[in-house]
């Protein structure tokens, strides 16, 4: 594993009685695109602000490339921030905004001019160097904010929901652009977002936060396919959750008597949620259940509603074990099911995650 760029150990932040960040441990590698994902108020922005130096941790240690910075003011930390509101200085033009950090670092003025020009070219804004921020569109302001941070060649770039204010099309274009930029400059990015799609598509790894705690850290595939808690499963993507109880012989028993193999060791008698992604489920008519692969897990239900999404069909299936959403990819020759039909829902056992309450 690469050298760690940012290391949080036992970091806690309290505002009066409120625990905003609760004893977080996190190790972010050099050159990594790391996202902190969670709903608003989960503590992700506070965590980012502690790394930037705008808040000081109540307890715990923050290290950047091995150096303890937890109690240093922001102006001496080797990190730069892209703010949610961009925070461009309204009384300075684009060139002055981008050059501000270098000027404060007392870089020679000819060198500043050169680096500012290069940074503006990098975000394709070389022609707008003399414009004031208010004369730029939202997307252009976003690029200036990015250039203003990157021109300083920080060891770590912190981004606080930087695409939140942009419309959908622009946001998607900027996601790709940001990811490419990060790969090109090779700087560690820490990206705070509440948008799970953004986190999944851009990150090398991500951490899911809830109520001040870091619930799970892993690659996007890891988090999506192997959520370790009900919150993570529910927050990322769509998911079906079925109530079950752990049996004595390494199985989970659902309502209606369905028995599934257990995916990891859990003590007998424990209540679990069985998490199933809609796209991992398959449908056949109940009469054709001999078509189901022999080792697949299955249950029988009735088709409720069918919803057409263009690239897919959604079925609401009710069964004794609970309601399930099933996604069927729209392909030529697809068999459609009608409301009221008896169907068997089946899936590969590895697609199910057993989540302890």
């Amino acid at each position, binding site marked *: 594993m690469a050298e760690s760029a940012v290391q949080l150990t036992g970091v806690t932040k309290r505002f009066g009685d409120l625990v905003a960040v609760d004893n977080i441990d996190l190790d972010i590698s050099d050159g990594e695109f790391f996202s902190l994902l969670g709903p608003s108020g989960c503590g992700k922005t506070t965590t980012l602000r502690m790394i930037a130096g705008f808040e000081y941790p109540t307890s715990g240690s923050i290290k950047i490339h091995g150096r303890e910075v937890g109690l240093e003011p922001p102006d001496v930390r080797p990190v730069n921030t892209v*703010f949610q509101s961009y925070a461009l200085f309204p*009384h*300075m033009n684009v060139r002055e905004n981008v050059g501000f*950090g270098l*000027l*404060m670092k007392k870089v020679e*003025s000819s060198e500043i001019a050169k680096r500012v020009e290069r940074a503006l070219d990098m975000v394709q804004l070389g022609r707008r160097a003399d414009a004031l921020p208010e004369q730029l569109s939202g997307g252009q302001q976003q690029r200036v904010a990015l250039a203003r941070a990157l021109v300083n060649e920080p060891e770590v770039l912190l981004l606080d929901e930087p695409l939140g204010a942009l419309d959908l099309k622009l946001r998607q274009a900027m996601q790709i652009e940001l990811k490419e930029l990060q790969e090109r400059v090779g700087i560690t990015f820490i990206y705070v977002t509440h948008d799970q799609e953004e986190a999944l598509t851009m990150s090398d790894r991500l951490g899911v936060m809830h109520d001040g705690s870091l619930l799970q850290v892993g690659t996007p595939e890891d988090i999506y396919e192997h959520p370790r808690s009900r919150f993570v499963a529910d927050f990322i993507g769509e998911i079906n959750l079925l109530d079950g109880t752990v049996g004595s012989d390494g199985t989970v028993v659902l309502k209606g008597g369905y028995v599934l193999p257990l995916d990891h060791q859990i003590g007998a008698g424990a209540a679990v949620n069985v998490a199933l992604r809609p796209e991992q489920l398959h449908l056949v008519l109940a009469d054709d259940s001999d078509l189901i692969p022999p080792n697949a897990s299955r249950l029988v239900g009735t088709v409720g509603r069918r919803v057409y999404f263009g690239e897919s069909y959604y079925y609401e299936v009710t069964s004794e074990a609970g309601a399930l959403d099933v996604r069927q990819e729209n392909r030529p020759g697809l068999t459609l099911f009608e409301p009221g039909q008896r169907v068997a829902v089946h899936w590969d056992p590895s697609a199910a995650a057993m989540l302890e309450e």
Partner: protein
Amino acid sequence: MRFGIRPGSTLERAMAGNAWFVYAFFYAPIITLVIFSFNASSRVGIWGGLSTTWYANIFRNPEVWDALKNSLVVAAVSTVVSTIIGTAAALAIDRYRFRGDRALDGILYLPIIIPDVTMAVMMLLFFARIFAFVDSFGPRLSLGLGTIALSHIAFNISFVAVVVRARLGQLDRSLEEAARDLYAGPWETFRRVTLPLIMPGVLGGALLALTLSLDDVVVTAFVAGPGSTTLPVYVFGLVRRGVSPEINALSTVMLVASIALVAGSLLVQRGPGRTSELAHEITHE
């Protein structure tokens, strides 16, 4: 945009008429004053032809020049001092949580609310007590320009602080965080980001302080000593001896000066307000 008023209706004409009435109400006395300041006759209210005698008279009058000089000195000192203290107070209340900050917030508005006369008596009493105390150690303090300036500072701080606070309230705090993030220390952040952005408020507050100081009669009359008359107090003294064409001329001069002042300050506030120094530092090679 008009809501519910038909164009050309009686109501619309009545509204337009009202606007003209209000303007007439404001400006008729001023125009009268200006016209009669050029009146050749010394009898008030009787037109005796055009003349600039009264202007010549006041410019030759050393008392007027002394009063004007006093007014300008007091206004300059009290504006500069109250702008600095008022801005600092606004920043402190806006930024820092300290014991009694809410109480201070309330108290700050007090000089705006209390009547001039109360303020004047208060200041006079205060100076009398302080002088009695200090004089017991030897020095002989007396009322004069110093006490006038101090009194003006006392009421101007509130006005400056209120105006600056309004501006600070609109300031996006992440701008200051961005400056800190970009390696600016606390002082550089204040100098290059906070101050330029609240500057319209600071200038507005300073202008208000300047105007209030130049206008003040009541407080000044109470705390002025012999020989330390300001222009408004001088005019007030003249009026008590009867309205003369000289007062008209003097008032017209003050009027023109005030208008010039306001126009100038608007021009300053509307200007680009850019940190050209910064532009120079970055673009200079």
